């Protein structure tokens, strides 16, 4: 199946500052594709380029397997950086403008306002909206005409915890319905919770891209303690399936190949090798530590 978005060797310079360097990846159809990276990593710049508001210094991209054009953008709902609306107009009138540019009628406006719970405030001027309401109006604008592709740049910015949960639920619902979603975020748990694929950017360089379960795999690790720590380290290093043995404050941490964690097996192995464990605990490796490992390569 053709990718929805294909990015090839995109470069972007702001004067002498390199914002993006040779970034390439593809967004598969039907995926929720996270673009993950710390602030200033180039996520918004990348999305700005593929939405034609920024000019790439080099490289190319294509939407739906075709050369980029405004017709394709009309089929994509995009929230880029901040909600951009006419402050002196009401929420509803702002959506009328967005719908007209996208080439849709106005019949879809009540539906999207209801989806983001802004129906009651549709006649209020945009300038009177709270930050969360502005964000929700931007999401409503993206949903106009039920686009097959959505591009969200930090969609939960400014939302309260309930709003964040609702937005994530909305993304999941839309993804279930077959909508392809590109989601830029610096929030690891957001990407982990809603994305099927991820690309990680750091300082404008693509670190890795692929299936979220492979890239952000939460490795299991066991924490072990014994009277003779050095002997324990020696036998654990020789144990089949062990990837790494690290010293934590009191104990040794053992990283095993994915899916091979078996605490009783470890206990038996140690006992057979003359070590009696005084501590054995399964721990989840934090997503943050995985991200730090990836971005510190």
């Amino acid at each position: 199946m053709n990718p929805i978005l294909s990015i090839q060797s995109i470069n972007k310079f702001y004067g002498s500052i390199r914002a993006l360097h040779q970034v390439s990846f593809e967004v598969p159809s039907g995926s929720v594709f996270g673009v993950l990276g710390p602030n200033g990593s180039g996520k918004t710049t990348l999305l700005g380029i593929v939405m034609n508001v920024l000019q790439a210094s080099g490289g190319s991209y294509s939407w739906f397997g075709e050369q980029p054009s405004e017709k394709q953008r009309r089929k994509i709902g995009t929230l880029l950086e901040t909600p951009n609306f006419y402050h002196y107009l009401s929420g509803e009138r702002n959506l009328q403008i967005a719908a007209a540019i996208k080439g849709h009628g106005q019949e879809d406006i009540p539906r999207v306002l209801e989806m983001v719970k802004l129906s009651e405030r549709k006649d209020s001027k945009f300038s009177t909206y709270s930050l969360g309401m502005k964000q929700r109006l931007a999401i409503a604008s993206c949903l106009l005409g039920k686009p097959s592709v959505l591009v969200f740049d930090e969609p939960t910015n400014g939302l309260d915890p309930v709003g964040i949960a609702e937005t994530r639920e909305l993304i999941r619902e839309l993804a279930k319905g077959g909508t392809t979603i590109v989601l830029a975020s610096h929030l690891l748990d957001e990407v982990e919770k809603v994305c099927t694929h991820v690309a990680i950017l750091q300082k404008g360089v693509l670190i890795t891209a692929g299936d979220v379960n492979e890239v952000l795999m939460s490795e299991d690790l066991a924490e072990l303690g014994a009277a003779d720590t050095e002997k324990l380290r020696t036998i654990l290093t020789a144990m089949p399936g062990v990837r790494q043995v690290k010293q934590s404050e009191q104990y040794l941490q053992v990283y095993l190949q994915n899916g091979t964690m078996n605490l009783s097996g470890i206990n038996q192995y140690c006992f057979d090798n003359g070590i009696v464990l005084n501590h054995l605990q399964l721990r989840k490796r934090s997503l943050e530590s995985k991200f730090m490992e990836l971005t510190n390569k």
Partner: protein
Amino acid sequence: MLKLLKIEWLKVKNYRTFWILLVITIASIPGFNYGLYNLMDNSFPKFHGKSILGSPFAFPDVWQTVSWNATMLFLVPAILIITLTTNEFTYKTHRQNIIDGWSRQQFIGVKLFEVLLLSILCTLIVALTTLGFGYIGNKVPEGVSPWAESRFLFFYFVQMVSYSMIAFLLSMLIKRAGLAMGIFFIYMIFENVIVGILHNKYNIKAVEYLPEEVTDRLIPLPYGKALLNQGGLAAWESHIPYYLGGAAIYLLLYCLLTSRRFLKSDL
């Protein structure tokens, strides 16, 4: 283009500032002319019942008079153009319009068309005001065609488009309303001062072709025509094609600069 204009209409139809500035733009043309008409009628000495300034509000001179007076008011439509254009940058809606599905060409194209529409509207108001003064305020002098000298209406249009394009160019380059308005206003004064010094004092003719002066010269001062020497009028007449040519070159330049800037730069 009609589709694009409909969307632009959605942007302004509920915008109070737009309506206030538009009403001032429209009302100021007949209003300012009426004020000057009263001033002429009441404040200048008369000779055999006629003003020493002649009959600037009667056909055919009324075309020149009303047009020249209206050129004094360019600041008002310029404020309207600057406000509407810089709003897009202030609210970043220029980005959103592109994201939502306009091409950059469509965005710049409809804005240029709006400048043209506003110029046509102001020219229409000038025409109606001229006809009002010519037919209602004064009797049509015998043997004079009401349409003689109506070419000043076209000169007004050229001047209006030119000033509006300068306002538009400044808005696109500066992107901030206050600064763009300030520079527009200061440049209007600055150019007049430069022309006053270099042209009148040092007789440097090239300053006639500065961006605003070249269109200003299309409509000479209408008052006291009888006092001007005929040689000066003939020289003006012979320079009209050059002034129009200069204006056309500047307009082309303004269009190229604004379009190129918007098409090529980051938004």
